[in-house]
């Protein structure tokens, strides 16, 4: 019984963390699919979202409004970033593009330092501090929120791509940018939209995780890197697979931590990254779905 409850506990821990990775990974995939750029500043959007939301809430704004406003603000930042840093350098080499996003990440982190300092901040959970008990395992409501929100975001995006006209236009851009251009679809606008939406997803991830782990100016890097692994494990252009990858990474970390030791947690997830890259460079789920976005 106790083993069972430990298992359930680890499962939920993994799912919670996985859902955060999933939101950020989704952003990676969208940006990469549409622009071909791996945005290493993706994790910093989560940081900006969390800290902005915290500030808005503390200034007395209603919670829902604060969330919406901070997501909108981060989307604006993302759009600005796309116009000022990514567009002008689109034709550069991979190394240069990677470093540009790293440079942007420095800027975001530096600005956050100026605005909020180094102290970690707390954000209140969406719905109280209570917890849920399942098979003897304890699950915070915020964890449930995290999982629900990430799945809901995915569902929303999926619907967006499958059911809406504009979503299909984006999909067309991803599949065949040349043909999409010939149809009069403005790729630059799509790229702007993609980065902005990715930024919004990142912000949402940050807002969801902040009540669990707190928010500080340097939280972006690790979230970003882990989400990165998730995206690669899933296959960089495949959104459902990236989400599966995110949950896989989350669960793997959680079980490794629960049953083995936590010292090698990082090595385990990056080891997974290497294995996937070497043996299945298109991602673990490339064959299973075979479909992009």
């Amino acid at each position: 019984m106790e083993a069972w409850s430990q298992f359930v506990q680890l499962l939920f821990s993994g799912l919670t963390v996985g859902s955060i990775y999933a939101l950020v990974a989704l952003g990676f995939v969208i940006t990469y699919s549409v622009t071909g750029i791996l945005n290493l500043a993706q994790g910093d959007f989560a940081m900006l979202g969390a800290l902005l939301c915290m500030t808005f809430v503390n200034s007395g704004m209603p919670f829902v409004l604060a969330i919406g406003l901070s997501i909108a603000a981060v989307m604006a930042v993302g759009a600005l970033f796309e116009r000022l840093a990514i567009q002008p350098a689109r034709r550069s080499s991979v190394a240069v593009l990677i470093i540009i996003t790293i440079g942007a990440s420095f800027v975001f982190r530096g600005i956050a330092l100026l605005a909020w300092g180094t102290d970690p901040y707390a954000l209140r959970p969406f719905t109280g501090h209570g917890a849920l008990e399942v098979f003897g395992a304890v699950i915070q409501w915020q964890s449930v929120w995290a999982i629900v929100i990430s799945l809901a975001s995915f569902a929303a995006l999926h619907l967006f791509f499958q059911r809406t006209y504009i979503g299909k236009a984006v999909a067309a851009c991803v599949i065949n940018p040349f043909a999409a251009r010939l149809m009069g679809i403005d790729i630059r606008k799509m790229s702007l939209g993609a980065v902005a939406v990715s930024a919004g997803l990142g912000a949402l991830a940050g807002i969801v995780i902040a009540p669990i782990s707190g928010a500080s100016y340097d939280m972006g890097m690790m979230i970003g890197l882990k989400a990165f692994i998730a995206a690669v494990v899933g296959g960089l252009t495949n959104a459902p697979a990236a989400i599966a990858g995110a949950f896989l990474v989350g669960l793997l970390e959680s079980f490794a931590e629960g049953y083995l030791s936590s010292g090698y947690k990082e090595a385990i997830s990056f080891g997974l990254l290497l294995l996937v890259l070497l043996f299945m460079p298109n991602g673990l789920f490339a064959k299973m779905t075979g479909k992009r976005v």
Partner: protein
Amino acid sequence: MEQDQRMADGWKRWLLLAGAAVWLGLPWLVFGNNYVLSTLILIGLYALVGTGMTLLMGYAGQISLGQAAFYGIGAYASAYLTAHAGWPAWLALAAGAVLAALVALVVGIPVFRLREHYLALATLGFGVIMFTFFKEWKGITGGLNGFFGIPPIRIAGVPLQSDLPFYYLVSLFVLAGVWFARNIVRSRVGRALRAIHGSEVAANSLGVNITKYKLQIFMLSAVYASIAGSLYAHYVTFINPDLFGIVPSIYFLIMVVIGGAGSVWGGLIGAAVYVCLGEWLKAVVPLLLPDAGGEFEIVFFGLLLVIMLIYMPNGLTGVALKGWRRFWKTGWRRQVDSHKARSIGGERG
């Protein structure tokens, strides 16, 4: 032919000599100022890593986001072998280099099947895994508490404990490293590498074994990094894993990209600009904003980086090279060329 060749190379040789003179003479300009010296030493160590990386990135066209791991291998090999196993520093340095090359070989064989973003990610993963080893393998690395009490390096039994001799030692290594890299670039191997960068299929069809050369250069760049790491360990005498994580790897990459991977000097110039930029921001930012702390420097640094890369994607040496070429073309070089052409023809005819 010989004569003209000499004429053309003579200029460059003078330039080189002048550069070397400045480099060796610098400490006398700042005599006694160990701060400037140690800045220069640090530049030199970074430059060594960077030179290896320019070969890898600029000439073999491969990206590495895990180079600090090799830097760390050198540092820890030197630290452990000298402090705990009692080896002489030079032997430890060589052992570290061999170890780094071996690791590069083992990692390189699978990893170099990947390209671009995927390669970058794989090397990043390698870097993180090595960092975990440095952190967790406490028996050898001392874990997160760090490794201290590393003995100084000795030349003919005399320990190098002050900055001036160390500066000369490092600068010798840098010069040798750049010389070695330059020689490679101007050889069959270097041409093959540049050919790979230009077009893999074409290079391959002309008999260049791409995998072999990529691996060799990756190993060589690992050796460069490892030697720099060894020297660093003996210089500061205290190391901890944070120096060899992914953040330093990213900094190395930044240096090389700033300097421009298209020239073997890119590593040195990138390191110099990177370090000076940091020191300069430290001096300038407080003048502009008296109350600003280090965070302003980070913002400025990030902005500069982005702007620089947008406008100079080939780095500083790329810009310099462009200017140099223009000068080269319009100036006396053309005359030399026609001379040269005639004389080679003459020799044959």
